[in-house]
């Protein structure tokens, strides 16, 4: 069964304190791994797609990496506006584009 597990469930950082969020997955043929950001009361906002092990993508203070079993979202020198829930999802081959989501990591960055 395809599955996504994110850790930690919650993470509290001081402004400027870098850290990483983890997404472990099991999937029968990975087509893509997706990272989304979700603010309270809003829909998930697309951040990155990773397709193969070794791939990395960056956007401002965020960098996503992918191995055959997990993905990391590295946050460098975070700011309070980075506070949100970060969701990881996998898309399997031959599944019509379905996304299977993890439970998310709630990030809080204090000034």
């Amino acid at each position, binding site marked *: 069964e395809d599955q996504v597990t994110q850790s930690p469930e919650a993470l509290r950082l001081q402004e400027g304190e870098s850290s990483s969020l983890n997404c472990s997955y099991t999937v029968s043929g990975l087509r893509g791994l997706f990272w989304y950001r979700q603010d309270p009361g*809003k829909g998930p906002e697309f951040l990155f797609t990773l397709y193969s092990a070794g791939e990395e993508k960056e956007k401002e203070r965020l960098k996503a990496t992918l191995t055959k079993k997990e993905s990391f979202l590295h946050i460098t020198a975070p700011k309070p506006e980075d506070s949100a829930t970060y969701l990881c999802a996998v898309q399997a081959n031959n599944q019509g*584009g379905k*996304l299977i989501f993890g*439970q998310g990591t709630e990030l809080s960055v204090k000034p």
Partner: protein
Amino acid sequence: DARVTQTPRHKVTEMGQEVTMRCQPILGHNTVFWYRQTMMQGLELLAYFRNRAPLDDSGMPKDRFSAEMPDATLATLKIQPSEPRDSAVYFCASGPPADTQYFGPGTRLTVL
């Protein structure tokens, strides 16, 4: 700035009433998804369409939920009759086939 739109944004209803949620996908996207988000279960896929045809609705309670795409600019999700356990945020997402999905703002449903 193309976006997925959903109406209503909030809905409070009583148990047993019919609820209809609407979604306008991004123009040109031919795949539309319906998700439900709760604290306990997180984001769960209910159903999805490609070129207006339903591909998978195995995530929906068949006896009370139905999803349709009357045309390429409108997707609907109906619950009849609604139950308190249906209280959740319902998201619509659209995208090209097997690619990034873009989410709408959601409909927050409360069934009393």
